[in-house]
């Protein structure tokens, strides 16, 4: 493998995406506050976007498709963050905590 051509090899991007995904999953499992989990979720979204972009760049016949999909993902991520944060704030108002352990009681 020519090191100088590394940025033009699809595998590199796919591995970076896999790393992002793994970090995201790890964070999702280990984080114990809702906002932390939200951040980890964003990482997973990013991993997916990166995958789409890499595949789009190297293997897709129409290079616009992947970009559009990623745009959609961004839109969904933005919507998700807005909703998730409002839920988190509402939860915080009621429980004075956003730690997932404290929320397992499921009673108001």
């Amino acid at each position, binding site marked *: 493998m020519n090191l100088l051509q590394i940025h033009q090899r699809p595998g590199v991007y*796919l591995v970076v995406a896999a790393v992002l995904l793994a970090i995201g*999953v790890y*964070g999702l499992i280990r984080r114990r506050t809702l906002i932390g989990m939200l951040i980890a979720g964003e990482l997973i979204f990013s991993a997916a976007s990166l995958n789409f972009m890499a595949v789009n760049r190297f293997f897709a016949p129409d290079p616009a498709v992947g970009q559009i999909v990623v745009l959609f993902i961004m839109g969904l991520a933005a919507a998700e963050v807005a909703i998730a944060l409002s839920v988190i704030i509402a939860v915080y108002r009621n429980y004075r905590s956003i730690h997932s352990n404290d929320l397992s009681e499921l009673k108001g």
Partner: protein
Amino acid sequence: MSTFPFQDAILVAIFALVVGVTIGGALIAALSTRIIRGVSGLMLCCMGLGGLYYFLNSPFLALMEILIYVGAVCVTIVFGVMLSEPDEPAHEESRRHAVLWGGAALLVSLVILGGVAHLGLRGPWQEPAARVSDGSVQAIGLALLTTYSLPFELISIVLLVAILGALVIARSGRTKE
């Protein structure tokens, strides 16, 4: 772009930097106990991602990534951090417990990493026969308003509903205005 000495080397160095920023940011985002640093990590990661998109021939998406993730998502998350208790407390579970669960989480993520990386590297990828469009902003815009107009509209509705929902949920607890 005219060629110049060490062009490739410089490009690779920049690429390595971008990848480093992406993964480093992601690590900060996932591992730091202070949420505000986690958000900063996410911001770094997104800027790195923007760089990666640029390397993938899509400056448009690179900029959109920065605009939406840094300018909107991260800012919203920081706002959320400000409104609620921000930091994770020290682990109250026992050390063995922590090691166990941490190890399990690490294992799961490593398995995922291995699996996906394997698929990515060994997958039967095929080069496309011919390119349909040039992937420029015009092409994206055209596709958005023709082929993908329905998802496009759906996304707008989702966003609208999300905004309204967020408003309703966030305001419901508030008594005074």
